[in-house]
């Protein structure tokens, strides 16, 4: 999850067929074409037999354009949306195991409270904090907990949906593309 300062991040979602090997096809394409994935999350969608993947990709507009096109070229990928420029809700979940002595426990609990995070496990010398939010929020909480001693951190990677009526369902594809302002090369996929 290293952040490359110079490269902007884009959020791309893909609706894919839930078949063996699909994740491998997608990952293989990213590797072969040299695209950088900051995070990848996969799970079932609202449609049986279809999964939705959310990618956070590092690169300029040109790279992201190529990523979406090459994703779409995969036979098992049904719909690809670059939702970076849109009004999106993006969430990630993290579990953080942090050292907590008697003296520091209450201070940690205060920080956790401020972040509306939860403590989901308590041991004699450590806590597990569960936090949900966008990447920045999780980064901030991580920074604040670091001085206490973060023993382990695990993040799910971002998942994202458009706000309001915009949906990433394939049926709505033409409508969505009409709404979004055209960029170079976009006519290609109309």
């Amino acid at each position, binding site marked *: 999850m290293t952040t490359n300062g110079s490269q902007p991040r884009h959020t791309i979602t893909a609706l894919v067929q839930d078949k063996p*090997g699909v994740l491998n096809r997608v990952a293989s394409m990213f590797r072969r074409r040299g695209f950088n994935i900051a995070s990848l999350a996969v799970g079932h969608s609202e449609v049986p037999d279809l999964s939705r993947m959310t990618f956070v990709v590092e690169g300029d507009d040109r790279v992201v354009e190529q990523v979406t096109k090459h994703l*779409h070229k995969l*036979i098992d990928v049904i719909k690809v949306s670059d939702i970076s420029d849109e009004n999106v809700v993006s969430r990630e979940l993290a579990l953080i195991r942090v050292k907590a002595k008697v003296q520091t426990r209450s201070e940690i609990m205060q920080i956790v409270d401020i972040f509306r995070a939860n403590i989901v496990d308590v041991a004699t010398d450590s806590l597990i904090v569960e936090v949900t939010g966008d990447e920045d929020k999780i980064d901030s909480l991580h920074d604040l907990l670091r001085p206490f001693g973060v023993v382990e951190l695990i993040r799910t990677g971002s998942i994202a949906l458009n706000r309001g009526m915009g949906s990433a369902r394939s049926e709505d594809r033409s409508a969505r593309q009409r709404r979004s302002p055209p960029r170079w*090369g976009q006519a*290609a*996929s109309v």
Partner: protein
Amino acid sequence: MRLTGAQIVCESLLKEGVEVIFGLPGGAILPLYQTLPEYPQLRHILVRHEQGAAHAADGYARVTGRPGVAWATSGPGATNLVTGIATAQMDSIPMVIVTGQVARASIGSDAFQETDTTGITLPITKHNYLVMNAADISRAIKEAFHIASTGRPGPVLVDIPKDVFTEEAEFEYPDKVDLPGYKPNLKGHPAQIRRAVRAIDQSERPVILAGHGVIFSGAYDELRELAEKAQIPVITTLLGISSFPDDHVLCVGMPGMHGMAYASLAIEEADLLIALGMRFDDRITGKASSFAVNAKKIHIDIDPSEIGKNVEVEIPIVGDLKAVLQKLNERVSSATHLDWINRVEELKRDHPSMKIRETEKLLPQYIIRELSQATEGKAIIVTGVGQHQMWAAQHYKFTEPRSLVTSGGSGSMGYEVPGAMGAQVGRPDRVVWSVAGDGGFQMTMAELATMVENKIPVKFAIINNNFLGMVRQWQEFFYDKSYVATHYTGNPDFVKLAEAFGMLGIRVTDKKQVRPAIDKAMENDGPVIVDFVVEEEENVYPMIPAGTTIHNLIEEPAPEKARR
């Protein structure tokens, strides 16, 4: 109808109109082979090496436009196909490959001759399948042919475990495919087509750069109509050669690394580049950021991911070339572009890239010219990769579509032998000449036995310089003639080799023998090898060194480098 998995494969191939299969059996695919006698309509050609099967299926597809079919067994059988599959993928060749796999229960156990075939071929196929039930075979094969032959074509592999071939299932061939994630856009966006028409009408110095897509789409007439109606010079990429007749007055030839200098210069001076079914390969563009800098660019291609991949374009159109060109042609205004046409003629005069130096020595270029004349530009020419390939592309005057069969993107040495075999099987009515390098020829010459066995009368012109010639040329130009590992000092006697295989072999060492040898080869009704022992250190000109621009053009040998 209840059939075994193996029978379902054969029935499905028949439904797809398959007439020939190139393959080689082994344990895992044996149940499929043992059903072949039930299907005499399926002609099986037993190759000597699976790479030969893949290249032959590829050559068959290139000349017929129909998917080529190859079979191989698991493990080494499948891995031997890999070069052939990658070659087809790079040049968008429709192919369906069926491989045997170890039985289902053994998958993942490192069983004898087990390899992860779908894993290995994932990045070099358009799509692939591991079929785990006999009931799924017909749908997989239906989809495989559909995917291989529509949109931007490509190879599709179907991997079938041994016990799936013997499992029984109900056979009903699906009449349509259900692939929600695969819907190639064929029509082209009307607004983009209008923009393209306007750009063409407004241009003063337009050029067409025609690629392989023109051939896939069969858009020869449409390309010609556009060129003639608006008087636009036509430049063809290596794989676009034969999409437009070389003897047409508007034909400017091939640009790029070893292209005609005048073609590259015309692109440099053009104010509009109309790129048709091509992908701005680095051998065409050189340094991509300096390519056709003065031109607005229209790019018509069926694959959206090619748009903007290597070169930014102002007017992209995604669609089938034939359909898009028809709409363009309806609207484009007639034009003469007289000044521009004259300028291109002037470039041709000032940069005569096709000049052959005066000598009594046997030059490869001379052989290709003689071959072109002897066959009246009507042969199918198959090449491998290297100097011989470039000379064939430069000096043969192609007059019919689908006539240059060559490994372009992948640059696979050895393609010239089995590729020619597949081309001849696909077009028994045409003369097929394999213009081969002595290096590539030796990589796959085992297939000569297949050709003798099956009476496949390919004529081989080995351009024998006892060198890996193109690599040697780079060593001469860029490594101060340090010929490391490029000189063959113990090549076989190709005439005796031909005799050992049971075919005619002819050796040519002199200019005067060239035409008689060609004629003699064509009079023979079997495969023939003509071993042309040529000047060893002849170079391909012009040359634009890799990653540079037209300003670094090497047009002809510098005087001090002129040989002996």
